[in-house]
């Protein structure tokens, strides 16, 4: 039995029955990271000492039989945009290369309270800006299924680490597909919850009105387990919902028979890789066999999702990233600075990569006098229409199914020279964020030996149905159990 391949559910059972210890499981995970991550390069920081300390504490907790949760003793990795006290949090940017937060994100606290064991922080596109992880200022992460291919982005490190069994679960963050797109590329399950379901306190903001922290796991059951632990109201984030977090795993086995599955026709257009399309069609047939009613639906604003998403991202990111100014924390360049403006100019020039520079400048452009109405305001209006699309669709069906990406993982370097081409790879995942609805990616096949992902999109706050429908699929298929040989 390879401990690092266990699901949370399996590992937790072995821990609770004392067949294994958390120290044992954590050591195995760290060993595998030190062996395998030379090739995958999914971790920016590995927290060996902290992990072993937390593992010991978890074992003591289990020995005493006190306050044991399904995550007690389970090793996990965190995307490097989520604050971890005394552990470097870099956003894979030079501007935060040596930044050590003095406080924890709410998610970090919740996982620590549950007894989960932090083994490290994962690589990402700088500040979450990218779809391939190639915008990390440090190094590229490789897809464990083929090291010449990208893992997707921006949570590429979290997806690759999960895929290569370098943690029992990982935490990602999804601003416009950053959990789902790499989950699809790397054959893991990952959810972008409803906006406001998980606290953003301590998350380094990209787009404050889109950002959603979400777990990446081996299957839907584990995903439900982790979301249950990290979701909930937080007085430090006023956009979090007050409503109670359901016990997602309790009802996950409920039959999907008679439920209505919507297939948005706008997601099936020319340009989709043949193997992706056939895998999705096969998944639809599987749901038909499970007794779901299949309905074609229309989300007419779909093709405008991408410009809406990117324009609003540019605008919000340009103001959010104003805080990186070289005065209070992070990189500071002040050689011969005559005034404070000089520090800003030098620090930001040196600290930000090209994609970040592009986006904050485009944001300032879209918000500037003369262009505000044509770009920012127009995008906010079309955002209203995007949201209505989902409302209309969900008045007819219970859940939607769509691919996560028109292709499987592309090759490293294939799209780096053309920013617009890179943006287009997000076409299927971006619309959900401006609308705020939850969506989960899960494995549904292979095309040319690379994983294919699909996503289940649900109603506001209805993660329960997503987990139930995802779990039903994973009970009759084994795509999610396929592991890369690495």
């Amino acid at each position, binding site marked *: 039995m390879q401990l690092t391949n266990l699901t949370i559910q399996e590992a937790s059972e072995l821990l609770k029955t004392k067949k294994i210890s958390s120290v044992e499981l954590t050591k195995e995970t760290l060993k595998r990271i030190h062996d395998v991550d030379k090739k995958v390069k999914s971790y920016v920081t590995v927290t060996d000492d902290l992990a072993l300390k937390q593992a010991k504490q978890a074992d003591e907790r289990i020995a005493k039989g006190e306050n044991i949760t399904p995550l007690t003793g389970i090793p996990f990795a965190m995307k490097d945009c989520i604050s971890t006290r005394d552990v470097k949090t870099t956003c894979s940017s030079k501007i935060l290369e040596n*930044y050590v937060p*003095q*406080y924890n994100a709410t998610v970090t606290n919740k996982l620590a309270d549950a007894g989960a064991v932090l083994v490290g922080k994962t690589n990402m596109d700088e500040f979450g800006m990218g779809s391939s992880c190639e915008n990390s200022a440090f190094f590229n992460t490789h897809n464990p299924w083929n090291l010449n291919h990208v893992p997707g982005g921006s949570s590429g490190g979290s997806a690759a680490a999960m895929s290569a069994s370098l943690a029992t679960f990982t935490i990602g963050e999804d601003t416009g597909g950053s959990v789902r797109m790499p989950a699809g590329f790397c054959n893991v399950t990952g959810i972008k919850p409803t*906006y*406001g379901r998980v606290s953003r306190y301590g998350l380094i903001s990209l787009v404050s*009105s889109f950002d959603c922290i979400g777990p990446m796991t081996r299957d839907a059951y584990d995903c439900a387990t982790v979301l249950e632990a990290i979701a909930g109201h937080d*007085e430090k984030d006023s*956009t979090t919902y007050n409503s109670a977090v359901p016990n997602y795993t309790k009802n996950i086995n409920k039959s999907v028979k008679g439920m209505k599955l919507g297939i948005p026709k706008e997601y099936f257009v020319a340009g989709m890789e043949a193997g992706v399309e056939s895998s999705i069609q096969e998944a639809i047939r599987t749901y038909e066999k499970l007794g779901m009613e299949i309905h074609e639906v229309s989300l007419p*604003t779909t*093709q*405008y999702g991408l*410009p*809406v998403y*990117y*324009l609003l991202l540019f605008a919000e990111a*340009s103001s959010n990233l*104003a805080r990186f*100014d*070289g*005065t209070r*924390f*992070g990189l*500071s360049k*002040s050689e011969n*600075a*005559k*005034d*404070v*403006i000089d*520090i*800003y*100019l*030098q620090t*930001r*020039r040196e600290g*930000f990569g090209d994609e970040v*520079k*592009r986006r*904050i*400048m*485009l944001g*300032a*452009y879209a918000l*500037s006098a003369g262009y505000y109405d044509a*770009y920012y*305001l*127009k*995008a*906010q*209006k*079309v*955002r*209203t229409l995007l*949201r209505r699309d989902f409302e209309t669709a969900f008045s007819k069906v219970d859940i939607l199914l769509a691919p996560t990406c028109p292709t499987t993982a592309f090759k490293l370097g294939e799209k780096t020279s053309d*920013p*617009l081409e890179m*943006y287009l790879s997000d076409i299927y995942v971006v619309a959900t964020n*401006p609308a*705020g609805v939850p969506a989960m990616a899960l494995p549904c096949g292979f095309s040319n030996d690379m994983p294919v992902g699909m996503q289940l999109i649900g109603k*506001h706050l209805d993660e329960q149905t997503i987990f139930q429908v995802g779990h039903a699929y994973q009970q009759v298929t084994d795509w999610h159990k396929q592991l890369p040989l690495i």
Partner: protein
Amino acid sequence: MTQTIDTKTIKHVANLVRLGISEEEAQKFSGQFSAIIDYFNMLNEVDTENVIPASDVANAENVLREDVVKPSMDREEFLKNAPQSERGYVKVPTVLGEE
């Protein structure tokens, strides 16, 4: 409609976001921005007459609480990350007026 974003505009927005850029960078960004903005112009096709712009998230409502004084981060702890500090303050060069 094709819109060219010249290097003068690039330098202007770079200054707005306090980003030092070189002439070569301005030229590179100019070409890329024109293509990206051109793509975004497709939004003009959408009829948004009488559509209210989304300004909030779905659950937006005012969240109020009592203004209770609570301890905040220790000053010394906070200043750990500051590049320069003096007598408990973050130190920066002159911001206003003459030295």
